[in-house]
């Protein structure tokens, strides 16, 4: 570790790695300056800088309506997937039962089923139950996708919760719900918070399923963005994209801080 002679290999590896980082950062690097452009056409780099596109985004009622819908759905999804996911993670890591591996796989499998398949399934299924096109339908669908993430994040957190504390409390006569409320959950709080943020972001960015099941009145922000890229490439997209990138960055940093506190 200490002595470092720069061999050709490590220089080449370094160069390749940094090209990779640049490639990964490229979209954000392009989007952010564009969003401060002054005109209705997309030119990179922009000729002059202003907040024109942000103003346009904030004043246009259908962009605002889509944002409000996304916010509502994402909050609902975060709440529901948290309830289901944290509870499932607790059960999976504290109980022994038949076919545990199989059930774990089942609960995590939505992460591996292509979004389009889920989208079609939910479209047919919710359509049959007349839930298609409603906010509730969107929340249910997004929760299916978010729960695996909540389970994995919470299970990782539960591994760090010292079980001897739970056992000690039980030996002293505390009932399970008291133990969960006073010991497990407080110790698990950083992971639960991280999981909530993830679930929120997954729902806020989800596009394929929403594109299939959202109605005219429940168009979410990603659905609106999808049609905006597909049909018109409106410059407002640069402002929306920058805001979404900032949201992702904020959540990334928040989670990194939560992890460090553990």
């Amino acid at each position, binding site marked *: 570790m200490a002595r470092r002679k720069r061999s050709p290999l490590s220089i080449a590896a370094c160069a390749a790695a940094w090209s990779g980082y640049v490639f990964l950062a490229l979209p954000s690097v392009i989007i952010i300056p564009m969003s401060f452009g002054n005109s209705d056409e997309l030119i990179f780099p922009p000729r002059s800088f202003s907040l024109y596109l942000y103003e346009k985004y904030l004043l246009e009622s259908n962009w605002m309506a889509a944002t409000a819908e996304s916010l509502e759905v994402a909050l609902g999804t975060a709440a529901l997937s948290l309830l289901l996911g944290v509870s499932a993670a607790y059960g999976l890591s*504290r109980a022994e039962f038949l076919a545990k591996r199989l059930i774990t796989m089942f609960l995590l499998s939505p992460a591996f089923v292509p979004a389009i*398949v889920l989208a079609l399934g939910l479209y*047919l299924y919710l359509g049959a139950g007349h839930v298609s096109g409603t906010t509730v339908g969107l929340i249910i669908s997004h929760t299916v996708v978010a729960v695996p993430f909540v389970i994995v994040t919470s299970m990782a957190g539960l591994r760090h919760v010292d079980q001897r504390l739970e056992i000690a409390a039980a030996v002293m006569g505390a009932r399970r719900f008291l133990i969960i409320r006073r010991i497990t959950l407080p110790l698990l709080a950083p992971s639960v918070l991280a999981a909530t943020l993830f679930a929120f972001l997954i729902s806020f960015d989800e596009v394929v399923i929403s594109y299939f099941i959202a109605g005219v009145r429940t168009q979410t922000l990603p659905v609106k963005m999808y049609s905006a890229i597909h049909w018109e490439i409106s410059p407002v997209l640069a402002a929306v994209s920058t805001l979404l990138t900032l949201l992702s960055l904020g959540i990334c940093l928040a989670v990194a801080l939560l992890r460090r506190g553990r």
Partner: protein
Amino acid sequence: MAYHLKGSTTTPRRRDNPVVFVVPAALFMAGAFLLPLLMVLYTSVGGNALTLAHYAELVSRPLYAIVLWNTLQISAFSTLATVLVAYPIAYHLARQPPRRRALLLILVLLPFWTSILVKSFAFTVLLGQDGALNQIVTALFGDGARIKLLFNRPAVLIGMTHYLVPFAVFSILASLLAQDPDLRRAAEIMGAGRWRIFLAITLPLSMPGVLASALLSMILSMGMFVTPALLGGRADLMISNLVDFHVRETLDWGAASALAACLIVVTGIFAVLLSRIRPGQLLGREI
């Protein structure tokens, strides 16, 4: 120390089994995930009619063969590109001290958590006729050198690779970090050069991670929808886009479902293979 407690892996009182905590999620998934999937299978066989007509159509019409071939080709190429881009990043990250690694990891995590629409939009701006890249090209070589970069196969591959790289980095990084540093140190003491150490120790030991990342990339890219729809041209349709086409344009739910069923089977095979290599780590996204 307290090893007298070691036997009780199931916490407190045994009479209230914590398995009940799994029940709500299991019921929810049965209702909102399993049933919709079964609905797809049911629709693909024509409902109660129980015919294989939709599947027969998949085999007989050349359009489907072309789209299936597109899907496999695009997925394979973007998987290859992904591994080639991701490996140096993972290798670089693995050699950093933990604090610096955590910082650099943000460069991978940010695109991972960035909306695919934001990325697709950025690439349309970057690769378009008057996009940033073409401006550089025309500034250097004149107007005649303008290249068509959008709505074609390269654009789809670039977009897909960008989407897949973070997944692959996590998976390869995990297998690099799991290696025993003493192996490398021993080789170094015995006089092996860096290349030799890399080729004889680091690379072979990281192969499970590479393989896992390749399988994950295949799973994710086979079902890709947004990237080919927004960055590709008519010749770059993938299975997902055809499903969408049938639902929206021809209203042929049977054909859409048969296609989706094929997609489940193909990605399912890859997922089973993945779970063989990385049983405990199926969800490679957690880091």
